[in-house]
């Protein structure tokens, strides 16, 4: 009756709630708290071709209803992921999205290529991480570099390709359109917003890199606006995220046009948020007599 299923780039998700990259590890830790198999899917911690140690110095700072992180893509590398983490992720029997970062076109391409014969559901191309010195977000700032990269990656990948957009783009709508034109099967947005904090007592920036990425409810009104703008401008489906704390927020993103929503920071605030958001959406559909989310998607 009340069907939460969502078709996204020809892949069926059992419900619209996906754990956001970098906030959920590979699912294991949260699986000790609730069955993460209830989620529509999990986007893996951002992977790079080779293992990365991430940034030194302080990595996390709390701000009013937000957090700034400077993790810097610490990850085990693609090979380790495939042998050690992926088999565990498979047990959850939901959609596996592999989030890929990189500092050069070649690195992205080699990492994506490696997955061609690996059983995953989708690649999420992260061209929006503000926390690594070279590359990554650089590709997401301008439509030309984004389009070029996406085109090349699309040519070589066998998996559906979604591109994760940066709110730091000069014009996020133009980047979105360029990705669509380059063949992306879907988009996800927003990644964190470039931000800063200063330790006034020590007269130093809080982060060694000075700038880092802001996420959490503080940015929700901005994220929602960007998701709405992008959804109005492209035909490919969108995963919306940025500050979602509860089912009400999730419904806002769906009404703004998102097919799926991702939850990041909220997992730290309430580790059971994923489960609760799914039941909240379900209850809302029942109360409002909504049979499929298609009825309310993009109505704004």
């Amino acid at each position, binding site marked *: 009756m009340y069907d939460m299923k969502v078709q996204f780039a020809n892949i069926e998700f059992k419900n619209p709630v996906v754990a956001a990259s970098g906030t959920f590890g590979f699912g294991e*830790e949260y699986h000790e708290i609730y069955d993460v198999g209830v989620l529509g899917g999990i986007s893996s911690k951002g992977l790079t071709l080779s293992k990365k*140690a991430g940034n030194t110095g302080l*990595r996390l700072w709390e701000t009013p209803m937000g957090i700034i*992180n400077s993790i810097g893509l*610490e990850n085990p590398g693609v090979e380790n992921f495939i042998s050690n983490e992926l088999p565990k992720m498979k047990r959850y029997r939901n959609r596996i999205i592999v989030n890929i970062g990189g500092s050069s076109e070649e690195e992205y391409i080699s990492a994506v290529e490696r997955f061609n014969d690996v059983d995953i559901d989708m690649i999420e191309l992260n061209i929006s991480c503000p926390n690594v010195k070279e590359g990554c977000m650089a590709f997401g700032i301008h439509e030309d570099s984004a389009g070029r990269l996406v085109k090349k990656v699309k040519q070589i990948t066998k998996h559906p390709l979604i591109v994760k957009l940066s709110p730091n783009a000069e014009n996020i709508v133009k980047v979105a359109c360029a990705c669509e034109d380059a063949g992306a099967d879907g988009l996800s947005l927003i990644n964190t917003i470039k931000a800063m904090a200063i330790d006034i007592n020590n007269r130093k920036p809080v982060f060694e890199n000075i700038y880092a990425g802001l996420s959490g409810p503080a940015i929700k009104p901005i994220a929602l606006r960007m998701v709405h703008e992008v959804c109005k401008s492209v035909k490919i489906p969108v995963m919306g995220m940025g500050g979602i704390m509860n089912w009400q927020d999730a419904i806002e993103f769906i009404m703004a046009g998102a097919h799926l929503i991702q939850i990041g920071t909220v997992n*730290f605030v309430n*580790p059971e948020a994923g489960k609760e958001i799914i039941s909240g959406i379900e209850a809302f559909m029942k109360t409002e007599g909504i049979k499929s989310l298609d009825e309310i998607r993009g109505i704004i």
Partner: protein
Amino acid sequence: MGMILKNEELIKDIFMLEIEGKYEGKAGQFYMIKVDNTPYPLLSRPVSIFEITSNSIKFLYKVVGEGTKILSEKKKGDSISIRGPYGNGFPPVKGKVALVGGGMGAAPLYETAKQLMPDPEVNVVDLYLGFSHEIILEDSWRKVCSSFFYDIGGIITDYVDVSKYDVILSCGPDIMMKKLSELGKKAGVPVYVSIESHMACGIGACLACSCQTKYGNKKVCKDGPVFLGEDIYDV
């Protein structure tokens, strides 16, 4: 959700919080405390287990910023949400044990001493605490150890003859734990240190708390907070 039984200021800015309920945890583990029932502030604060009693859990904390300030305003009867226990806690030890704490690093050593004292494998539990201004809970500390030494305003490591012990468990400022690790290394005595880090998830998923060790990055919240001193400090 637990109910606060007590949230008492012992000396300026240092509070004992007691929450009703049956809680688990071993010495050196911590809980994530949500300081308010509103979503603000977003993140829970990691706080070590001070003591587990049959019907409650206790935390000893210091007001240092906005989160602990909000926590300090909670009253008896208020409800509060905590998650845990998290982290590895102190390892099993044998023989003569010294526990060395500096500042709020004293907090996890109470339950530690309490658990070690009756342990048949453990012969001696000496407790060394360094306070900056004033001693707190003097009688309590004395009761849970073989000998209790404390110092106010000085350097507590000066009092510890590392070579007398089979193992040292410590928690406190980095400079103190590094010093102990050096002394331990020289004397061939393992020194375990409980370190701090800013945390988001507390369970190993976000990598906010990564620390560099001899064996690569480790997560303070999950692989720690207790590490072998020489794996962390360049000694």
